């Protein structure tokens, strides 16, 4: 059972089709599947729905798929860093389903965990709750949110072994595990594929059962907002 593929294009072979739902990991530009996004751009697949917390920035990350107009609909919590996104949305060229950030993460985890629906207080009494079932538990109002079941997950991790066991690094973990869980097929790009046994079984963040294909590659890891302090402050 070979999970390791030579490159992003090969790893996505046979998995892409128009109108599909893709769940993507990452927060802002941190921990995004750069290489797989590029390969989706090159494939030319169209009318995608993408569940991702953000939509990248102009010209990087998911922003590239917006530039090429391959995305029909985004399911996101925050898209404020992307002028082209805003333009397409306000022009009615792009659908947008806003999800509170925690609801989006939980919907992904739920979909991957066989939970088609759960109740949350988040968004009750707001636009987000409109049209959703309301239920009272212990005197408080909650709305029903549904699990996300994606056709494909594209995810970025730090290290993997060849069975797909994954380790993430610092805040680059973010949406990657829940996004990985909710896809029928999950393709992962990592910075390094290590030997079996090199990852401590207690330190694995996402077991290989969630992972179907793996590539290793160079990552740009662009920083969205460099903020520093001067050494004199110390």
């Amino acid at each position: 059972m070979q999970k390791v593929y030579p490159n992003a294009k090969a790893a996505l072979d046979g998995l892409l089709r128009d109108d599909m739902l893709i769940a993507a990991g990452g927060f802002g530009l941190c921990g995004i599947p750069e290489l797989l996004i590029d390969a989706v751009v090159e494939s030319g697949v169209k009318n995608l729905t993408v569940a991702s917390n953000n939509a990248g920035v102009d010209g990087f990350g998911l922003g590239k798929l917006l530039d090429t107009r391959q995305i029909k609909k985004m399911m996101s919590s925050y898209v404020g860093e992307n002028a082209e996104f805003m333009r397409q949305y306000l022009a009615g060229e792009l659908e947008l389903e806003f999800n509170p950030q925690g609801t989006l993460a939980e919907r992904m985890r739920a979909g991957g965990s066989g939970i088609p629906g759960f109740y949350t207080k988040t968004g009750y009494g707001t636009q987000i709750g409109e049209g959703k079932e309301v239920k009272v538990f212990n005197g408080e109002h909650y709305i029903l949110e549904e699990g996300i079941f994606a056709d494909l997950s594209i995810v970025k991790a730090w290290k993997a072994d060849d069975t797909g066991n994954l380790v993430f690094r610092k805040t680059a973990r973010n949406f990657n595990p829940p996004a990985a869980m909710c896809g029928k097929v999950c393709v992962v790009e990592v910075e390094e594929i290590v030997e079996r046994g090199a990852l401590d079984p207690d330190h694995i963040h996402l077991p290989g059962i969630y992972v179907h294909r793996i590539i290793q590659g160079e990552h740009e890891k662009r920083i969205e907002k460099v903020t520093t302090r001067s050494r004199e402050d110390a």
Partner: protein
Amino acid sequence: MPWDRNQMAERAAQELEDGMYVNLGIGIPTLVANYVGDKDITLQSENGMLGMGPFPYEGEEDPDLINAGKQTITELNRTSYFDSAMSFGMIRGGKIAAAILGAMEVAENGDLANWMIPGKLVKGMGGAMDLVAGVEKVVVVMDHTNKAGETKLLKSCTLPLTGTGVVDRIITDLGVLDVVEGGLKIVELAPDVTEDELRSKTEATIV
């Protein structure tokens, strides 16, 4: 004299008690971290971190280490990382003691609007809806009036809501108000700000 941004942040820091886990929003709330003094406060960054440290020294930025505002930051010796599902699990689950957030509008019943202006500004709520729904104590820090001089403390919000009845306390440049039965209650006035001035710049019922 009304409080400036830093004075508002300093006042907001007084809301924090030893041992609290706290989430700070973008803008003035971020400045609150500068005023916690020697209180044992653990900052949560909702993209998956507890124990947020200061900005890195120049040249030591790590692209894998950012806060919810996408700024490069550092870790501490108490830091832990986790995924977004767990991060919002702890928020929704009431494990965060306090959130200090900015706002566009607050209503006298505690309704909060801070995520969109229809037709004009479409950024999204990010984690704000989860925070106001789940966190024990929600403190809003904002200017009392907008750039046009109109009050941001209303009888009811005009913008799409972030949450209903969620705000506990409001800290503005003019003073501190609590959301109580029947409206807002003045807790404190900024130096040289009169109650009349604050009332005249507030639409919400003051009880």
